[in-house]
């Protein structure tokens, strides 16, 4: 399996390490590399868009002419800034910030406020079938976005105070996964979920 991590900026090394560790735990062979060019997106089974600054990452992808090919990768997983880039719409965005426009979600950037409002807490995440026991993980929210609304085809994986903080979507043979927090800083469970989803096609 070939996984790429968008490599310009942010928690790139952390995602590479978490993906390798998740693959090891699942006993699957997986090559993980950072991607900074359109050519690097060829033959990827999955692309991870890390945490960082969504405005910076979008501009660098656009300047590199990578956006179209990113949309064609069979599976994408975004955390924090990455989740913003996956969304179809940004809530209250005056500057007209652009995204990949793949997931049927509306996100609000910096929805909790500045860094002094950042927090971590344990979160229950539903990674198995709907009736299975959720798993508890430490979730780290740093200048985090909120998912304001989601379409019917979006599966909610975790809520916090009634707000969606992690979700997935299957569409047209592709799979998308978004988290408002940073699993790459605390756990491999969501990376394992992403790899399992890829294996099951």
């Amino acid at each position: 399996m070939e996984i790429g991590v968008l490599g310009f900026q942010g928690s790139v090394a952390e995602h590479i390490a978490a993906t390798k560790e998740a693959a090891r735990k699942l006993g699957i062979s997986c090559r993980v590399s950072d991607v900074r060019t359109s050519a690097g997106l060829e033959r990827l089974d999955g692309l991870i868009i890390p945490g960082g600054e969504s405005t910076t990452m979008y501009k660098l992808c656009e300047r590199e002419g990578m956006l179209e090919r990113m949309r064609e990768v069979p599976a994408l997983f975004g955390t924090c800034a990455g989740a913003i880039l996956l969304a179809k719409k940004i809530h209250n965005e005056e500057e007209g910030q652009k995204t990949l426009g793949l997931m049927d979600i509306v996100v609000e950037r910096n929805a909790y406020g500045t860094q002094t409002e950042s927090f971590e807490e344990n979160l229950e995440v539903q990674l198995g079938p709907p009736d299975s026991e959720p798993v508890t993980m430490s979730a780290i929210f740093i200048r985090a976005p909120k998912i304001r609304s989601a379409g019917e085809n979006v599966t909610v994986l975790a809520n916090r105070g009634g707000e969606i903080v992690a979700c997935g979507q299957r569409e047209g043979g592709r799979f998308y996964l978004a988290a408002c927090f940073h699993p790459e800083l605390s756990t491999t469970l969501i990376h394992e979920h992403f790899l399992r989803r890829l294996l099951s096609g």
Partner: protein
Amino acid sequence: MPAKSTSTLKSGLAQMLKGGVIMDVTNADQARIAEKAGAVAVMALERVPADIRAAGGVARMADPLKIKEIQGAVTIPVMAKCRIGHFVEAQVLEALGVDFIDESEVLTPADPHFHVQKKSFTVPFVCGARNLAEALRRIDEGAAMIRSKGEAGTGNIVEAVRHIRTINNEIGALAGGDPRTLAKEFRVSEGIVAQTASLGRLPVVNFAAGGIATPADAALCMQLGVDGVFVGSGIFKSAEPAKRAKGIVDAVAHFNDPKKVARASEGLGEPMRGLEMSALETKMSERGA
């Protein structure tokens, strides 16, 4: 219950800035130029270091109105500087909701002996360092991020390169040493010496700063192993700030690809004039060891 103010959250924001360029700005227009160029954060200032150097006198924290103006102009993180040891300026900046505080030698130090005890703050701090001992002392005090001091406001990269190489070499030399002896020599905890030795790098994110004026300067620092760069006077003291800001962002994003660094360096107009080290009246990097 959500936990705030943890070291994971503080160093976590620094991790999200890796691979990025943080730009000094002095008003809303400059902040918007920086964001549009692709900066990952801005440093809100009343004057860039070159102007602080030229003006002389005591340099202090910016007017809160200046910081609010810049916070209102952009969606990326906003940093601001306090004087070394001036914990009340730091309290004020935290109250203003800045995302990161730079306890900076660019401003005139307020305390001849002590830096701010950074652990008691919710907001994370970045501090400058010339060598490993300074870097580890700052981390021990609670800094969530380190940057080279370089020599701010000169447009001369030589001191930043000196500091980056010194820290790299001193980390390399840790392997053979006794952590207890080194901890005593550095005036830091034994734990942080052992941690740095086993990681083979600083235990927090490490940026370059001080004298970066061109895309190639920025890529040079990246190839020397830093996680990202601060650009102070280098952008808004140049002839065409918007072009130069974008060029530096592109060069950092593709720092290992000389063809792309070449393209990022094309047609940027005059860089800032720059100063030779021997011509300096004040060495800012000697402040706050």
